[in-house]
Every structure is written in structure tokens, then in C-alpha cells.
């Protein structure tokens, strides 16, 4: 790692100020950032650790929305009675990230801000049509993800919370890469009235995306049977040493059916 300075501010205002300095970077759970620093792929002058900003932690139910602080760990989301009661699919997703030690440190804010094309959370944020709340504004999920590792966040902008619609039927299924546990393909499905949203991670050459053919098939009939024989074209799907595009495209259909079957 190159040298850097470190601050752990106690308030959001102080964090925003520090994050606005030249070459500053936010530190959440560090489970993406520290490995990146070790490889010298980034050289920030200053790390702004958000762990002491209390208001960024925890889960609350407010006006029919499940509000989750950006610094809430994967383990906390997985175990939260509120998340289990109102969005069990989201709790199950969090319980399947990495391993117990990763879940004790990694945060939802870090995962979504990073927008790794194989990360789990972006699919839930997109399928559930969540709102990303920052120190400056609210961003709809459809406007947030801008391609691999790219988001609508401006330099120094801090995600403070996520607002998820509580109590809608949803589910997640992932085919994990057996070595890393990241998604080779992960599909999050959510029922919004008679419509459905289906978001796919791990497969898209541009990161997380909505599978419109599968959404159309689920319209008015939110069942695994409605997806029988439906698939996603292999154009724009990733090919790498782990799986080629045709295989991943096939897995999207399979995971989507499993996600609907698991949804509640």
C-alpha cells in the first residue's frame, strides 16, 4: 500500500467535508478498498472512515419503507428481524455474500457504491426499485447504476441510506463462483403490483441490468411456470474463464425461475 492519511470523523458533516478534499476516499468495510490499495491500484491521499458516523448504521421501518443505513454490515442485514419480516429475499441475499468474516465487515453502502459487476446487492437495489439517498440528493435505482464500477455518485458524494419498499414479494437466487462466492449469475425478482422487476448481476458486460423479456413474462403471472422456456439473449453477456456468454445466458433463466420459486 502507498502511504495515506486516515480520519474517522464522528459526524456526517465532518465526513462530507473531508471526503471533498483532493484525492480523498471513503472507507467503509474496506473489503474491496483495502485489497485494491494492497495491489496499488489506487493511491488516495486520505481515507475517511465512516464507522464513527452513527446515523449511517442500522435498519428502520418508516412509512412503509425499509430504511437501511449505508454502513450496515451484511451480517446485520442478514440477521435483522425487520429485514427478515419485510424483505426476506434481501436478508437471504446478504446471508450469502462471501463468508462470515466478510459479512462482519462489508457494508451495503460499500457494495452498492463500488458496483462490482458480480456483486449481489446491486441486483436487489435495482429489482426492488430502491432509492439511494446521499448527503446531497435521492437517486432512483434506474438512474444509479452506470456500467461496471460506475455509478451516478459524484466525487466525494456519500451514500447515507437506502430506502426499500417493505413487504413486497421478492426473492434472490445466485449461482456462486465456487472459489470467490461472487455471483457467476445472480437474479433478483420483485413483484410490484401486477408488474415485476427482474435484475441480473454477474452476467452483464456492463454490470447489473434489468431483463425485460423476463419482466414481460412475469407481468400478471408472478410464477416460476411463467418463465418456462423464457431466456435472455447472449449478446452483451460476459464471457470469461469461468463461464461463456451462452452458459451465463442459460443460467439467467434458471436462476430467475429459482428466485421466483423462493420469493415470499
Amino acid at each position: 500500500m502507498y502511504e495515506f492519511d486516515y480520519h474517522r470523523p464522528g459526524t456526517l458533516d465532518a465526513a462530507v467535508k473531508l471526503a471533498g478534499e483532493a484525492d480523498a476516499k471513503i472507507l467503509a468495510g474496506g473489503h474491496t478498498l483495502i485489497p485494491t490499495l494492497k495491489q496499488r491500484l489506487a493511491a488516495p491521499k486520505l481515507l475517511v472512515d465512516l464507522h464513527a458516523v452513527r446515523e449511517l448504521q442500522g435498519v428502520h421501518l418508516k412509512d412503509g419503507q425499509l430504511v437501511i443505513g449505508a454502513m450496515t454490515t451484511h451480517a446485520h442485514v442478514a440477521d435483522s428481524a425487520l429485514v427478515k419480516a419485510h424483505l426476506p429475499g434481501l436478508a437471504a441475499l446478504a446471508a450469502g455474500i462471501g463468508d462470515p468474516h466478510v459479512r462482519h465487515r462489508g457494508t451495503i453502502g460499500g457494495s452498492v457504491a463500488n458496483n462490482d459487476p458480480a456483486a449481489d446487492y446491486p441486483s436487489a437495489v435495482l429489482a426492488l426499485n430502491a432509492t439511494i439517498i446521499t448527503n446531497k440528493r435521492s437517486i432512483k435505482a434506474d438512474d444509479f447504476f452506470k456500467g461496471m464500477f460506475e455509478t451516478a455518485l459524484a466525487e466525494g458524494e456519500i451514500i447515507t441510506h437506502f430506502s426499500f419498499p417493505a413487504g413486497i414479494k421478492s426473492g434472490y437466487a445466485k449461482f456462486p463462483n465456487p472459489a470467490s462466492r461472487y455471483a457467476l449469475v445472480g437474479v433478483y425478482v420483485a413483484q410490484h403490483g401486477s408488474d415485476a422487476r427482474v435484475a441480473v448481476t454477474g452476467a452483464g458486460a456492463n454490470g447489473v441490468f434489468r431483463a425485460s423479456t423476463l419482466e414481460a413474462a412475469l407481468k400478471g403471472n408472478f410464477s416460476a411456470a411463467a418463465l418456462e422456456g423464457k431466456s435472455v439473449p447472449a449478446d452483451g453477456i460476459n464471457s470469461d474463464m469461468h463461464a461463456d456468454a451462452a452458459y451465463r445466458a442459460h443460467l439467467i433463466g434458471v436462476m430467475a425461475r429459482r428466485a421466483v420459486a423462493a420469493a415470499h
Partner: protein
Amino acid sequence: MPMIHMTVNGKAVKGHAEPRTLLVEFIRDTLRLTGTHVGCDTSQCGACVVHVDGHAIKSCTTLAVACEGAHVTTIEGLAHGTDLHPMQEAFREHHGLQCGYCTPGMIMSAVDMVNRKGHELSEHTIREELEGNICRCTGYHNIVKAVAAGAKAMQGMAKAAE
């Protein structure tokens, strides 16, 4: 260099560390507690697992400065003098190790597993929970047996302490 303060294995400690110093480096190089190992340094193997404020974490992927004021338990903090912790004893009894490199991380993970999931652990649960701990020697079989036995024995420990 900043001065860092922590409680490690029940004792107040302090030492200088650069902001980029990893928790595992602070534990091994500054505190000279070399039971915590570095197997991969890429966050995968779990040889470096310690407990910070009661949770198992990978100390190769945590900055020492970020643990200012924290309570840290390492493998050295489990035994009482020459009396091994029940989980250590179970690893010995069930041949849960060969070279021993992964063992401190396995044991710290196993104790954390019991803290979260209780004393009756199925083979499936243990295998799932050891996702973040790699062993190159044993083939895991005896580790799984040791964790199941150690989990039960820890119940006796809790009772004995009452």
C-alpha cells in the same frame, strides 16, 4: 506515526502504527503475538481471523488505526495458562490439524460460529460457515468433527463458569 490503543486478550496495549498498517501486522510485528497467521494476504484464506468487539474478522483486511479503542481477541487469548480452550482441545483430540498453519484462524472462526449459532452444529452448518477458511492439509473432515465436538464442549464451559 499515530499511537494506537486497544485491549488485546484482556490487556490494555498501545503502539505506533502508520495509517496503512494492517491489524495483523500490528498484532504480529508490534505486539509480537505471532499465533495469528497470514496465509494469503488477499482476504481469502482466514488464517488471520481474530475477534474484534466480539466478531470474527480477517485482520489482513482491516487497518490497525480503524481498531483504535477496540477489544481484540487472538488465538493467544483463548487458553487459561496451560488449560486449552475446549475448541483447542477438540482440534487436538480429533486431529483437526496437520501443519497447523490454518489452525488459529479455524479455531477463532469456530468459536465465533458457536457464539452465533449455538452448541449443536450440523455438519452442513459447519461446512457452510467455514467458507472463509482454507486448509491445504487436512481435507477438512477432521476439522468439521473437531468444531462439532468443540461446540458441545463449550456448553460445558459455559455451565462450569456459572
